[in-house]
């Protein structure tokens, strides 16, 4: 049974259709990538699947729970790392995790052990007592993923997990996502506009453009379908979306994306 089933999901903001009747499934232990330029509807897709935004139409179930009818149950089985920074710089890494361990009702007796193992998994044990404002960009992202793993979610949503990270930090985050799938069979839905990231991590990809999925499948077959030897995901993307990466993102979103990138540097 698929961990996530999205059927014809749609989200409209006023006269703008951000997500336009898209459908996909994500299996257990599968890493599913949504690839597209800024403004394609990736973040909106994640927000409706994580219950942050109501659907305009369509249905989606996560671990069998309906996102519209049973949002509380959905929230209990998902982990989410937003594109913006979600770790609080004012407190330590440990304190950041502690509040969520309690919100997710990790039993008191297990709490500290669970926090320690999440920090250890993400390679942050020695920085547990350091305030997050002294963390590097890569460490912040790893802490955020550690936090999203505390309650052992069935499925993890990562919105642009490596935006603003340098190549070394990016590689470390990729390694940890791969280990997550191997060790816990956690399903992962990640959005990205980095072709390299999609290529390396994802079992299957959906290429999203102006709110619609224009192509989907394993990266290898998407490339093979192009018929040209040595075709890259870039070529696949350009084929389906046209050359232009004109995205129509407003000032505010651009400002926020850049701010996140600056903070992570």
């Amino acid at each position: 049974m698929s961990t996530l089933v999205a059927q014809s999901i749609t989200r409209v903001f006023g006269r703008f259709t951000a997500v336009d009747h898209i459908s996909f499934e994500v299996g257990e232990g599968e890493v599913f990538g949504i690839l597209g330029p800024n403004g394609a509807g990736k973040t909106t897709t994640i927000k409706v699947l994580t219950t942050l935004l109501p659907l305009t139409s369509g249905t989606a179930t996560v671990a069998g729970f309906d996102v519209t009818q049973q949002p509380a149950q959905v929230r209990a089985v998902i982990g989410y790392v937003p594109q913006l920074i979600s770790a609080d710089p004012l407190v330590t890494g440990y304190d950041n995790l502690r509040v969520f361990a309690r919100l997710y009702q990790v039993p008191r007796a297990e709490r500290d052990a669970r926090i320690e193992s999440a920090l250890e998994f993400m390679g942050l044990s020695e920085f547990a007592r350091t305030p997050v404002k002294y963390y590097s960009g890569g460490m912040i992202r790893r802490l955020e993923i550690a936090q999203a793993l505390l309650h052992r979610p069935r499925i993890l949503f990562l919105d642009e997990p490596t935006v603003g990270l340098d190549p070394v930090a990016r590689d470390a985050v990729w390694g940890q996502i791969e280990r997550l799938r191997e060790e816990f069979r956690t399903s992962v839905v990640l959005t990205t506009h980095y072709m390299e990231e999609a290529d390396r991590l994802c079992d299957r990809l959906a290429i999203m453009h102006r709110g619609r999925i224009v192509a989907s499948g394993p990266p290898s077959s998407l490339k093979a379908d192009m018929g040209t030897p040595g075709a890259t995901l870039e070529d696949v993307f350009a084929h389906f979306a046209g050359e232009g990466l004109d995205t129509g993102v407003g000032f505010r979103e651009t400002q926020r994306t850049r701010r996140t990138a600056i903070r992570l540097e």
Partner: protein
Amino acid sequence: MAATPSVPAVGLGRRLATQLDRTFAIVDYEVRKLRRDPSELLLRAVQPALWLLVFGEVFTEVHVIPTGNLTYLQFLAPGVLSQSVLFIAIFYGIASIRERELGIIYKFLVSPASRISLVTGKALSASVRGLSQATIVYLLAIALGVHPSLDPLDILGVLVAVVLGASLFATLSMIIASLVKTQERFLGIGQLLTMPLFFASSAIYPISIMPTWLRPIAYANPLTYLVDAVRKLMIPASTSVFPLAVDFAVLLGATIVLILVESRLYPRMAQ
């Protein structure tokens, strides 16, 4: 489509206990943040000190405000305590805006904690700040010879009133933050609200000397009920406008209504 799994039947009491534990998880987290940077609390103590030392001392000398059997300083001290609770809570919504701009708010909203427990946790966290203000004003009042009641029940009553008042105004502040969403507009509205709330209350003069048009506003102002309760408990010789039960009922009722409103608005911060 796969059959929907049934939700395990959990008793109401158990569910309430779970949500309450989440509320206190938020309080615990906010207190940890405050402990990392207590400078804000010390800075906040300056204003009430000035009100008592400068405004209070001067108006005690000139005897222009009729305060019956109390000295003006005795009348003023509970008003300044209540006002400092208002001032510290009314800008609390700025924290929601900061959390929204950073992205922290998204993670709270995808957690299984109910919106009511998240909002209540935030409101109670604001009251921790209010309690520190109350302590400082109480100590100042003793030093200035106001002779506030030191009866443990009276002090407990003041603390409960402060927790309710701070929660009330902090929730009002979060409602404004949820509606306007940006810092600039939020600060503007906050400034706009503070002074009318303060002057249309019995904090620095009795309602009896207010012009008649102002009185209905004072009666609709939650700060009036906070001042009334704190004054009666802190200075038992004072005459209160309403019975204590009415003061507490209004504060509690208004807080509950505002929390319910904000728990509907709070999720909009993630949209």
